[in-house]
């Protein structure tokens, strides 16, 4: 995987240098939190788990975990998910 790491590093430096946003250049998720009521996750790769207390969304090569109360998926579009409810935490893990 050394070649892929090198490629990623080069891409990152390149986008930093040209000040291009990461979500386009590096295919990273763009996550927008509105208070603790809503979270928009763009550029996702699908849902891994859903129940009213926990939502896991696959992004690029990581998983975004949203925990809270009464979570609902308001929208599910091919490239955007909107989670609504009382959000307690948002975390990334591999």
């Amino acid at each position: 995987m050394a070649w892929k790491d090198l490629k990623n590093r080069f891409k990152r430096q390149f986008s930093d240098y040209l000040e291009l946003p990461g979500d386009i250049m590096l295919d990273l998720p763009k996550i927008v939190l509105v208070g603790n009521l809503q979270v928009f996750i763009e550029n996702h790769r699908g849902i891994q788990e859903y129940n009213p207390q926990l939502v896991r969304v696959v992004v690029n090569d990581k998983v975004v975990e949203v925990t809270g109360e009464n979570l609902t998926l308001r929208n599910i579009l091919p490239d955007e998910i909107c989670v609504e409810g009382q959000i307690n935490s948002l975390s990334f893990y591999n």
Partner: protein
Amino acid sequence: MLLFRFLSRLGGYVTITLPEGCLEKFINLAVSRGVFLWDVTGIGTGRVAMKVRLSGVQALRHVARMTGCRFKIIGRHGLPFLVSRMKRRQAMTAGALIFVAALYVLSSFVWFIEVTGNKLVTDQAVEQVARQAGLKQGVPRWTLDVPTLEETILDQVPGLSWVGVYVEGTRVYIKVVEKKLPPPDETGHPVDVVAVKDGLVKEILVLSGHPEVKEGDTVTSGQVLISAAIPPPVIDEEKEAPDGEDALEPKEQQPLRYVHARGIVRARVWYEGVANMKLMEKGAEITGRETTRFGIKLGSKEIILIGPRKLPFEHYALDIEVKRAPVWRNINLPVELLTVRYYEEKLYTRSYTRDEARRLAGRNVLDSIREQLPEGAKIVNERLEEVETTGSGTVRVRAIVETLEDIGIDKPYQYRGGGSGA
């Protein structure tokens, strides 16, 4: 998003439930096939509800077969379902349609007719004519011909000078304006023209009647100017032919004639007025700043609810408005709502020189005289003179205004012994 919701309602959508276990696979597959899902919520008991458009349901059947989870439709919303429900309940649909149609049909008839603006002409008289012209209760609105209706009513109802017909909804207003006729001429009772005020007759124009005064005469209030009694014309021939029988005859044939005297008597009238003006004037004037205090009065206690506790004005005028509960069965509630408005006032002292005071006093007295003048009076001359006063603090000004005005007024004729009263 609102547009999206609206379109979903138009096209119809369903609420489906799935077991929680196979949700992720199902959603991911559905989304990748372009089926749009929204409002995914857990509903307890291990099932999850979500909404999907009617057009996506067929695709979801494939997804369900591939993922091996069965979904259940628990709710149907939107126009297509509404239409099918309507089809099942045709009587209700028909009822709703009939209601709307009846409302529309009934609103195209005239149900109320109101006649306004008449005092002497009765409503019935106007309505009677309107009925003959085709305006009555229950007539379809489209048969009304407003211009001819107006014309007919104006023609056939006596005593009207203008008629307007307005159709507003199911109500028709007939607005009429009555002719203003001059007061009926009491032919039975002769009328004199008498003076309303003292004056010097400048010109006299007799339309009917016998003049009692001539130009240059001084008249007093109440004096007859034009008499209703017209003496027989004096014929010179009478004197020339002193034939006893002939002389008596014309007098018998031409006794006093009584008429409604009319005419214009213009006279010079003098008005006098006096005004005082203090050289040092003290007073208060409202500055325009005001504040309002709103409170409740409980017995003798006053509680301020809204407004400043301490008044910001040193001098003020106030205006109190009290609201209290209506007295009912001798129960008098000791509660009052008080609205007190305070208007700030400023005290001032003004001092005038003697000239200024004289001018101001003159203006005041002339203004007050002008207010008394009747319409049509022409001011011929104005004169101001200062009157000596004992106190040195005031200036007194007398004004004399001379006008030219019509001083005649109608008054029923009264027999004055001497006939012509000259």
